[in-house]
């Protein structure tokens, strides 16, 4: 299987197959990251992901695999776009402290009612998770008031657990990134405990 960097090289040479492969690898992860970073309408999140990929194609010549991995590069673009969107729309999300029920259709759209996912991949035990737990984690992440911490924990779980890369994505040092992730983890863990998610897994 070709690496992201090899695919990027092919994309630079105009091979559309590389775009398909990169899209398949990253579109959903970017979607999840952008959705939780911005909390905008799912359709707008799709547009945002498209915009990120348009920027990837336009800036393909400027990408240098020796400076950063493709994953770091694309998540950094996504993060910057998310910040722009949030700033432009001036959206301020107040998340209730209680468990949040789906309030509109886009919440429904994002969160399918089936609580069992992808049993064919990985450890079946770890793959099974209840919908209540998913909702609880979503709410707990949404409750993170520090945007940098929120982005750090999202990048950690959605963008790969490499502190150095998270630091590069956030434009911070590795140790700062580690501190942010660990602080966010503690907050989310406490939040889950408050919501009674002790033995979900």
């Amino acid at each position, binding site marked *: 299987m070709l690496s992201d960097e090899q695919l990027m090289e092919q994309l630079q*040479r105009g091979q559309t197959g590389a775009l398909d492969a990169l899209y398949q690898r990253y579109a*959903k992860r970017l979607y*999840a990251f952008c959705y939780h970073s911005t909390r905008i309408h799912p359709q707008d999140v799709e547009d945002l992901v*498209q915009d990120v990929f348009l920027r990837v194609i336009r800036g393909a010549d400027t990408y240098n695999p020796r400076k950063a991995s493709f994953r770091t590069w694309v998540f950094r673009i996504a993060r910057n776009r998310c910040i722009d969107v949030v700033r432009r729309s001036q959206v301020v999300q107040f998340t209730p402290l209680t468990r949040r029920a789906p309030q509109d259709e886009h919440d429904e759209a994002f969160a399918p009612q089936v609580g069992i*996912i992808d049993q064919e991949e990985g450890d079946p035990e770890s793959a099974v998770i209840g919908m209540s737990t998913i909702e609880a984690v979503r709410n707990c992440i949404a409750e993170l008031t520090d945007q940098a911490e929120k982005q750090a924990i999202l990048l950690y779980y959605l963008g790969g657990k490499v502190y150095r890369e998270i630091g590069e994505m956030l434009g911070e040092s590795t140790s700062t990134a580690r501190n942010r992730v660990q602080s966010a983890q503690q907050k*989310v863990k406490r939040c889950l405990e408050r919501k009674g998610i002790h033995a979900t897994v």
Partner: protein
Amino acid sequence: MRDEKFEKTMEAWAKHETLSAPKMRPTVEMYRMVEARRKPGILTILLSRRAVWATAVASLMVLMVLYVRLYDPFMLFTPAPAQEVAYVGLRAGFAAQKGVIVIGTSVPSRGGPKKAPPILARLVLQSQEPDSPFVQALDLQNPPDQAVTLTSADNYRLVLEPVKDGYVYVFQFTSSGVLVKLFPNETYNPAQNPVRQGQSHYLPSQPNWFYLGQEKGEERLYIVASTEPLPQLEEGHSQYSAADEGSRKQRLLSTLLEALETIQDTHADTAAGWVFSFHHR
């Protein structure tokens, strides 16, 4: 909640969020943008309609140029009438150059080395008439004993070939009474002293030729070849050129002409000089 359980919960959440995201595909615009990055292959370039047209037009132009050059069907390359010049003009050669007729005799020239070692292997005056298909070449080291005549319509040039590295100075004393420095002079040839052995130096540099001004009379060429530099000739000519018309200019001219004509006596061991006169009618 234990850390391990928390990690598993978060990983499961991340997996769920990723997999439950809507299926997305690149847009048509994205595909176009990526395809636009593709560099066309050499075959594609060669077979493109534009390339075919460009090749056809270029071939036609080359053929037209070659045809005219080779056959001159419309006499396009007939030399333009000579422009009015005061002393010595510069223009392209006539197209009808088909050969060289060498005219030379065994009569010694007025000049040439006395004691100095031979410096020039060749010292030739080439000339061509507009109607003649030939170039005439005069060996100035063995010039003909009959008078040589050129008109303003004729072209002429000098060909020098040093047998050793040396310093060459060429002046023309025109029928108008003006001494023109032909070499070293960037107007006529970019080469500078010292000239290198074994190379033919055309004066003026190819493809140019000299032609004479409208003033009729006697023209004289002074050629000096020396193993050592003769800065006094260049300095003398600079002073002469810069001087205003008048008695001082005439004095400087006389001094310079005398220096040129006696160079073989004053620099017997190092220099050789030739003076070649021809009629301008």
